[in-house]
């Protein structure tokens, strides 16, 4: 019984992290049809930004937790948005209209570049900004404990998901974005400034990726290479849930998160494949993912 509770809690925690990471990726793909391999690097950028800002803050004697959190979120968003803006305006813009897969390769090149740029700026020493994580303590349930920080992250991802949903469903900009997702050419014909929407979408997606990294930083040790590790998992969740669908990303994250927690607690040998197995299984039955839209074939 204890194990079941542990699986549910751990699954939920992992799923919320997965959703935060995958949300930006799926938004960008939905609107722009770009599967951004550099998303992992944006995540890492956010992690480095928040880790170094928190580290600086505590080293210079600060001790207000709320300031640390503000720094964490703020620095990550800002750096993610700026990086996203530069990437979109500078490089991706030159590639619009080309093959979708060519875009994937361009983002792969950006991944390589950003990896080394981050290494040159932040070095290779691990950054360890654990204070916010430690400060939120834990809740004990008998032998099990749940970290307060992780609960907060669940809350953050729910809030982010809600904001995204609200924005896409209820605001005017959101509706415009959905029309672009549905059919870019017709939207353009109806007067939508698709280019500006693209930039905005990419900046938001990049910011989301960076926030995911920013909130993860206090839990882990930020080292070179964390971006690369995250990409494959994020892709798997996004593809499982259906490219371009926020709901899909959330459900996909939940499925993958629970499956993974279950396997770790009961059959640890499967842990390495469980994500891919889930993705492959979903794709076999629903070739476009859970909530993906089949694109109309042009004849």
């Amino acid at each position: 019984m204890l194990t079941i509770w542990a699986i549910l809690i751990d699954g939920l925690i992992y799923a919320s992290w997965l959703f935060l990471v995958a949300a930006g990726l799926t938004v960008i793909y939905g609107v722009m049809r770009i599967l951004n391999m550099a998303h992992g690097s944006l995540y890492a950028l956010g992690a480095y930004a928040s880790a170094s800002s928190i580290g600086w803050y505590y080293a210079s004697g600060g001790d207000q937790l709320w300031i640390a959190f503000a720094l964490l979120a703020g620095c990550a968003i800002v750096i993610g948005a700026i990086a996203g803006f530069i990437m979109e305006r500078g490089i991706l813009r030159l590639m619009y209209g080309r093959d979708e897969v060519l875009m994937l390769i361009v983002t792969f090149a950006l991944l390589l570049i950003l990896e080394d740029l981050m290494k040159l700026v932040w070095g290779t020493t691990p950054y360890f900004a654990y204070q916010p994580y430690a400060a939120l303590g834990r809740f004990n349930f008998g032998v099990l404990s749940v970290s307060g920080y992780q609960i907060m992250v669940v809350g953050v991802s729910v809030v982010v998901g809600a904001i995204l949903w609200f924005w896409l469903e209820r605001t005017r900009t959101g509706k415009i974005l959905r029309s672009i997702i549905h059919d870019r050419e017709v939207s353009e014909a109806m007067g939508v400034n698709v280019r500006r929407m693209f930039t905005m979408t990419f900046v938001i997606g990049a910011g989301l990726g960076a926030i995911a990294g920013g909130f993860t930083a206090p839990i882990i040790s930020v080292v070179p290479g964390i971006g690369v590790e995250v990409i494959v998992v994020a892709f798997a969740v996004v593809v499982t849930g259906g490219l371009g669908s926020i709901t899909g990303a959330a459900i996909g994250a939940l499925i993958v998160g629970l499956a993974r927690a279950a396997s770790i607690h009961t059959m640890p040998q499967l842990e390495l494949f469980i994500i891919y197995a889930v993705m492959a299984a979903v794709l076999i039955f629903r070739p476009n993912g859970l909530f993906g839209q089949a694109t109309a074939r042009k004849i």
Partner: protein
Amino acid sequence: MGHSLQPKSWQRTLLGTATSLAIASTGIVGFAGSASAQEATFKVGLVTFLSGGASGPFGVPAAQAAETVIKAINEGTLPAPYNTKGVNGLQLESVVIDEAGGPTKQVEEYRNLVQRQNVDAVIGYISSGDCLAVSPVAEELKTFTIAFDCGTPRLFPELESPKYFFRTGLDATADNVGAAHYLKETHPDITRVAGIQQNYAWGQDSWNDFRLSMKQLMPDAEFVDNQTPQIFQGSYGTEISALQTSRPQIVHSSMWGGDMEAFVAQANVRGLLDQATAVLTTGESGFARFKDQAPDGTIIGGRGPFGAFMPDNDLSEWFSKAYEAQHGVPPSYPSSKMAQALLALKYAADNSGAKGKPSNEQLASTLKSATFESVSGTVRMALAGGHQALQPMFYGEYHYSPETGPELRNIRSYAGACVSPPDGYDAQEWIKNGFPEADCN
């Protein structure tokens, strides 16, 4: 849709010609580059992780240690018996290569180092996979090579009659047999043991050796769980929950680097380390970094007498001061191990009896079965026919206070002959048979 970026026809011809010339010239440079290296310097190739997750805790500290030691060798400022300038009088020049990319790539890079860059010796290799792949090539190319850190026990059993390949560090078997001895002496009453290892060869081998040793030394201990997260996973929430549900008293881990630090911090906050004591076989690399994240009493090892476990002698004192002066932090165990490998090189060169640059054969025959002084005390190349170092294993308890900083207490050491199998024994068989011929006094 915007201007075309396609180059015009004359630009394409130009680019085409330029590309052809570039390809041709790299080929020619390749031919020319095989000219013999200068005679006045001894060129050593250093291979260590400069990118990826192993660079922060291991690769870069090792490269930094190399800088410090090579500078001192060339200036002649090392303490005795290494106070002569250079290696056998020759200035030491280094070429640093990133160990990233996997064993196949490293085989390629090793051949490039030896055949294109004409190095006179190679020191390096943190990853066991790289050691295993490169060692036969070192024998094939007859180049004096020292592995300074890789921990696979398979290295010499799989290398037939080595002549040129040496290892000045200890392997995972020594680490884990030592850990079992330490637990037997300091926590003799424990009954529930769990583990968490990174899911790859190093983690699998470590846990295996530890379990087998514990079965021999503490047969009443029950193994309640072993978690195997992916390497570089970073976040261990679920694994910690699983460990908590099995209520261990000891948690053994061979995790290293950022993973180890993250696990310790997370386990501490979650309360796992209130319930259990962690045994970290590579914990010394976090000695200066844990601060109050690792609870007092956490057992850490440095893979031998390295880093904070270095005994007090002239060399270790000089090294600690010089390294900290140049790099700002005290040296951790990877730095000490690199220093040791360089001292082994200098020893081999100085005592080779060669006039001028010693040949690979002279270096190899000098280091074989040698005994030399190092930052870790006396090193005896006594295993694997004289190619593998034999040194004591150290473990201690970590304590921290904000005023005095980190310190090690309750340090115990176990003789090399106690924790490493003698030649001719397979490591697992040696442990399973109750450590025959071990000398633990």
